[in-house]
Structure formats: C-alpha cells, structure tokens
C-alpha cells in the first residue's frame, strides 16, 4: 500500500479507533490475567529493595512469592517509583501494588486493599550526636484517642519547634506532620525514603519521620549514628496497617490474595517472614 494522503488518513482513523476501544476491552476483562504484575518501589528496606545483582528482594517479595504459591498465580514483581505508583495502578500498568502501603480512607476511595499484613506504627529518628531529644520514649499513641493524642502532640511540637523534619512525599507520615505539627516545624518532602535518610546523616534535616519498621532499618544501617526517639503513632491519618493495593474492579484477584494472606497469618508463615526480615513481629494477630 503506497503512502497517499487518504491511506494515511484511513490508517490513522483505524489506529485512533483501536486506542479508543482499548480501555473498554480492558475493563471487560476483570478476570485474573495469566501473569499478575505487582509493582513495588524496590527502595524501601527491608520491605522491598534491590539486591546487588538487580533482583527485588525483601519481606514483601517473599510474601508475594508465598501468596503466588498458595493461590497458584504467576506473580511477577516490577519496580516503580513511589511517585506515581497508584496512578500507574489505576492506569492499568500493573495489577497490584505492594510497597508497604497503608490503608487510609483517602486511598480507599481510589483503590481496593487486601487484608492488612502489618499493624503499622510510625515514629521519629535523629542523629545520635546533636540531634533533638523527643519526649515519649517509644510510647505508642493511637491517634483516634484524643485524650492521649493532644498532650503528646503538644510535647512534640515544643521539642521540635523551629526544626526541619524530613519525610517521604505523599505518605501517611507526611499527612501526620501536616495535620499536627505544621505550625511549629518546617517540613521537607523527598521522593524516596533513602533520600530522607541521606539528608538526616548529612545534617540538612534535624529529624525524620517514617514507619517504625523503616526507622529500625535506618538505625541498623547507620551503625549507631542514628537513633529512634520519641512517641510512636498509629491509627487516624496513619492508617490501619499496610496491605496490597488493587484496582476496585479486580474482585477475583483480591479474593485470591485475601485467602492466601489470611492463611499465612493464621498458620504463622507471615510471622516467620517478619522475624526473618525485621527481627520482630510486625504482622497482625491471627
């Protein structure tokens, strides 16, 4: 076929029609695909990270492998920056996201979640030398409990007044800082977790806020230069623990994942994985 103007027009129209019908074809096919792609950041140790030879390893990849085995699905982990991860899910680039994503009401409006696989709490880390000392000493505050939250937040605001806090952008910890401490601190947001860690060691920020498990990993990596300090928080804007995120129409896939996860929580497999990667149990009670 020679390339004439009318041929070109016809081909373009066909192409455009194909593009326009694409989403409908996808929407109609809610059944589980042969290969289930699951996105993760591969930069959130020890939940997920990249091994020196380029493999995605960590607590979540192990958990996904076990889910795949139990539900007889072919699950493949793919790496994707946190920025845009959920947009990629709703846009159909992969079937699920597994990146220590906390269940929050705001996210539930956009995506569906499996049952949670962690209890989820968040806290602060500072440098051992010269870092601010925060009140609380590890006491866990549930944000839904106003009587406990108010004095804890007031004490924190006082200790952190005028300080710069680092946090990963668009995380529940970012929401927490914005909601409770915005007026007394400067918040600096970073695209990825390791960037926050790096800038705390560089002395650009006075403290960082992250999930408790993340902080444990940071402290371990810093070889004692960094310490955890202050209250830990859970509930409220900090959500109800992490779960695998799916599109809302992926009902069958969610059912398969839920069954496998619930089984793993019941028979202690998930607790075993948590002990292996975190050295402590971060999973919900059976």
């Amino acid at each position, binding site marked *: 076929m020679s390339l004439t103007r009318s041929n070109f027009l016809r081909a373009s129209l066909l192409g455009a029609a194909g593009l326009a019908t694409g989403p409908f074809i996808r929407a109609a096919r809610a059944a589980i695909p042969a290969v289930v792609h699951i996105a993760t950041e591969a930069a959130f140790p020890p939940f997920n990270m990249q091994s020196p030879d380029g493999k995605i390893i960590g607590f979540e990849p192990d958990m996904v492998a076990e889910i795949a085995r139990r539900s007889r699905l072919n699950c493949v982990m793919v790496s994707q920056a946190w*920025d845009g991860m959920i947009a990629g899910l*709703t*846009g159909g680039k992969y079937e699920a996201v597994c990146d220590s994503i906390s269940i929050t009401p705001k996210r539930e409006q956009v995506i569906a979640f499996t049952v949670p696989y962690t209890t989820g709490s968040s806290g602060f880390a500072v440098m051992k030398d010269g870092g601010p000392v925060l009140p609380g000493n590890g006491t866990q505050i549930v944000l839904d409990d106003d009587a406990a939250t108010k004095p804890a937040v007031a004490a924190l605001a006082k200790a952190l007044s005028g300080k710069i806090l680092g946090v990963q*952008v668009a995380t529940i910890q970012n929401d927490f800082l914005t909601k409770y401490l915005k007026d007394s601190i400067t918040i600096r947001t970073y695209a990825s977790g390791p960037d926050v860690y790096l800038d705390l060691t*560089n002395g650009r920020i006075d403290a960082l806020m992250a999930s408790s498990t993340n902080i444990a990993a940071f402290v371990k990596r810093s070889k004692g230069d960094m310490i955890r300090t202050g209250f830990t928080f859970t509930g409220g804007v900090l959500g109800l623990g992490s779960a695998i995120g799916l599109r809302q129409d992926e009902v069958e896939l969610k059912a398969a994942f839920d069954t496998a996860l619930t089984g793993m929580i019941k028979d202690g497999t998930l607790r075993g994985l948590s002990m292996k990667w975190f050295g402590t149990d971060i999973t919900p009670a059976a």
Partner: protein
Amino acid sequence: MDIHFLLGLIPTLLSGLPLTLELTVFSLLGGGVIALLLNGLRAGSIVGARVADFYVFLFRGSPLLLQIFLIYYAPGQFSFIRHSFVWPFLREPYVCALLALMLNDAAYTSEIIRAGLRAAPRGAIEAAVVGGMSPLTRLRRVILPLAFRQALPAYGIEITGMLKSTSLASVVTLMDVTGIASAEVSQTYRAIEVFLTAAVIYLVLVTLVTYGVQRLEGWLSPTRTPLSARSAA
C-alpha cells in the same frame, strides 16, 4: 474533567511561581557573570582558554539533573565540608539548586557570548581603528553592540531553556511549580489534570519571554530603525 478541581489547582500551582521565577532570574544573572569571566579567561591566555574549554566541556557534556544531585548530595558526604564555613550555605537545597543552575547556564551562555564577539566583521573593526577609536571605545561602540544583537536570538533560547530547567530543582525538595505539581499528583492521583496545568503555566511563561525577546530583536534591528532616528536618540 472536574472544573472545581482545576480551579482549586491553579492557585496551588501558582504558589510555586515565585520560586520558579526567582531560580530563573538568579541563575541567569549569576550564570551571565560567570560566562563573562570565562570569556575574559579565554581572551587572557592559552592556559585560560583551555580552562574555559574544559569548564564548558564539563557542564555542557553532563546532564543538569546529575549536576544538581552531585552538588546537593556529594558535599555532605565529607565531614570536613560539613564542618566548614560553606556548609551553612550548601545545607540549603535552594543554594545547591541555584548553584547547579548557575554553573550550567554559564557554560552555555559563555559559548553564546563567544559566538557573538566573533560576529563583528573585520571591516567594521578596521574602520573603527582608522576612525581613531581607542580599544575601549571600539569595544563599547562597535564590537559589543554587534555582539549583543548577534547573540540575542540564541540567548533568548537559553532564557526559555533555563526557565524550564528550574523544574529539575524539585528533585532536591524545592517546591517550585513542578515540585508542587508532583506532590499534588501523589496526593490526588490525578496525573493528567495536574501535569497539564503545570505545563500550561510554563507555556505561558515561555510565550511571554519569547515575545519579549522578539520585540527586543526588532527594536535593535538596524533595518527597522532609520539611522537618523538613532543619532537623535
């Protein structure tokens, strides 16, 4: 598309505009000064010319994004820098981003100036010599005006280029238009609306700059202004 969301979005994104403009203007000013120094160095000696060449090679040959990362993350890795007098400056992400933008802009601008300086025709310079002008007067009345007119279109492209390059500052926690846009996207998951709106803001800015430079070019064009009007002015 949700019109209420869009209407709320525009002021949010525009709150990053002062930072975007600030970074653009200061990086162009600082870059311009360094570019002039580089040209002085080039004219001074052969060694100076090699140094200037190497500078241009370095900053034009590597991605600006990496330059920003290096200036932001590298100095903090050395404790002697962290304990020196420069750290209070390098600690600030704003300073790091501005420094990277400035150094990068200087490399491009110095080449634009160099090309402009070469544009004065030999005949015009000889005529000035014959007319008895001192070297400084020659520079002021013949070489620089010709160089400026010659370099203006290329420099206009550099201005718009820098304007867009400032968006890279968002990778080191600066909340310029792009920084606010990407934070907004990860909070609302509405990538299309937010990024399109941010792009429109940049488009408007670039259009204004392009128009301004074109007006200036026209005003400086010898064919449009009669000689008599010029000598009167």
